[in-house]
Structures are given as C-alpha cells and as structure tokens.
C-alpha cells in the first residue's frame, strides 16, 4: 500500500476511528492520541495491508484492540475500574447537562465497553452486523444479544429520566 492508497483507505476513516476510540476510552484527548498511534502503526506496516481483504473493518478492529490495550494499561496504572456507573444527575448536574442529548450520551457511556461499542457502531455508524461481529470478534448472534441489551438499558434509563422530569414538573 503506497501513500496515496493509505490516504484514501486509512486516513479517510479518521473520524470514524476517532468516534470509536472516544466511545471506548471516554476521553477526547486519549482518543486523538490513540487514532494517531494507530495511523503510525499502520503506516509502518503498510506493506502488509495489501493482503487485508476489508481494510476499513480491519482498521476498526485494530482501533478497538489498541483502545482496549490503553484501558488495560490505565487500569494497571491507576487501579480504576474501567466501567462507569450511570447515576441519575442531581439538580446541579441537570443544569450542567443542558439537554437530553448530553444525558443520553452519558447513559451510553455508562454501558459496558462491548455494549456501548456495539450500539454506536450500529446506531451511529450504521454498520452491518457481520462487520461489527468481525471488529468485536463475536458471532453475529452475540452482537445481536449485546445490541438488544444495550438498547433496552438505554430505553429503561430514558423512561426513568422522563418519569423523574415529569415528577419534578408536577411538584413545581
């Protein structure tokens, strides 16, 4: 793969890779660094990319693996649990989270890594189940199960949030 092919096949995926990295790492700066690091690694091994059948899917898979390695390193260094727990926002946080969109982002970010990666690959990127299965190294059935769980969890949280908002309005 020469530099022109690299630009057209890999660099054009940058935004997609960034969104995937940001979803997994939940940090914009770390996600940018991860995308940059992946570009560098792929550039160094660009001669091997000619043998890859589906370059975009391969690149997304490499991005996810690199992000998971980063999380493992962070986990070892900081001794922090990689998953966030979604807690309903207090009144102060509510003023910070101006709309439901940012609230739903937080809800998705609070899902386990696999579920939030799958829901975003499907609902944001519009990827086929087979592609998601390849990237996550799961079967298509397992992808469907995780997608369903992720969507149902988000639905429950949205309904709880809606109920909470209605109660607040009723009290006022």
């Amino acid at each position, binding site marked *: 793969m020469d530099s022109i092919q690299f630009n057209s096949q890999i*660099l054009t995926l*940058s*935004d997609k890779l*960034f*969104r995937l990295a*940001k979803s997994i790492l939940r940090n*914009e700066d770390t996600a*940018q660094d991860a*995308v*940059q690091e992946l*570009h*560098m690694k792929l*550039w160094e091994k660009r001669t091997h990319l000619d043998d890859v059948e589906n370059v975009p899917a391969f690149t997304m898979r490499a991005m996810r693996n690199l992000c998971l390695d980063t999380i493992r390193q962070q986990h070892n260094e900081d001794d922090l649990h990689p998953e966030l727990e979604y807690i309903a926002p207090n009144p102060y946080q509510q003023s910070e989270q101006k*709309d*439901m*969109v940012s*609230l*739903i*982002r937080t809800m*998705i970010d609070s899902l386990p890594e696999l579920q939030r990666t799958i829901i*975003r690959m*499907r*609902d*944001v*990127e*519009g990827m*086929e189940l087979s592609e998601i299965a390849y990237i996550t190294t799961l079967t298509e059935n397992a992808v*469907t*199960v995780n*997608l*369903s769980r992720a*969507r*149902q969890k*988000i*639905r429950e949280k*949205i*309904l709880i949030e*809606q109920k909470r908002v209605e109660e607040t309005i009723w009290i006022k």
Partner: protein
Amino acid sequence: MDKMNELLKKYFRGETNLAEEKELKHYFLATQVKPEHEAYRPLFETFDQELNETVPIFQKKILSLQSNKKRFWIRTISFSGIAATLLLSLWLIRSQPTDDFAILRGKRIDNPEYAQHYAQNKLDKVNNVLLKSLKPMKSFEIARNGLKPVHKIAETKERMIDIKDKLQYK
C-alpha cells in the same frame, strides 16, 4: 397496531435491519413524532449528532504522523533543498550573460550609451599610446632612407676602383 410502535419494539429487541433503522431515524429526526414517542427522540438526535463528530485539529495530527527521527530527516532534507534552490537561483542570476549593464571600475553601469562612450574613450587612449610608441619606428625609417646615399658612396667607390684597375691594364 401502529407501524412505528412495532418498529420501535423490534428496534429495542435488536431485530431491526438497517433499512428499518433508517426509517426510524427519519421518523424521529425529520417528522412530527407522536406524543408517546417523544421520549425516544433525543436518542436518535444523539446518534445523529455523534455521527457529525470529527477528529479535532486533524491536520496537526497528520503532520505528527511520522516519528521524530523521520520528521528530523524530512525537515533537514526539505530545508537543504530550499537552500540549494536559492543558491542555484542566485548563481544563475549572477552568471547570466546580459547586455543591459557593464562593470566599470567595480561599479555597475546600467546606461549602455555611457558604457559605450567610456569604452570608446578607452580605445582612443590605447590608440594614442600605440601611435606614440610607433613614432620612433618612423624616425628609424627616415634615418634608413637618409643613409641610402651613404650606401651609394660605397658602390661608387667600388666602381672607381674597378675603373682604375681597368685603366692600369691599358
């Protein structure tokens, strides 16, 4: 049952295909949704907004793609190339033959008429010097011409001796 209700149920079960999901997105983003569906609109708005997220300051990231070592060599070669090009251009400009100016006593003269006049004066001076130098040669010529009678005396003397010898025999 309402089609959208059915689609939403399928969606949350993870059973919708991409075309059905596209239909749902269109419903929630481009049309007036039913009140009972209003709660789910922010979900599809979130997906739509996230799709528009791009790598911030992507250009900077591309520039730093190469390793430091590679960047050092690329910069060194680039700067060397620019410097070499500038030097070559300067040399070509200086060495390019042109009639538009002349160097007189280390000074650039752009007026061709003045330069021509200056050259003519110089050539005249050279001519005068040569003429002066050749003057003694003319004197030599005059002297040589003046000596011609002297040569004739020798010839006359030889002839007289010859006549004298002839008279003695007689």
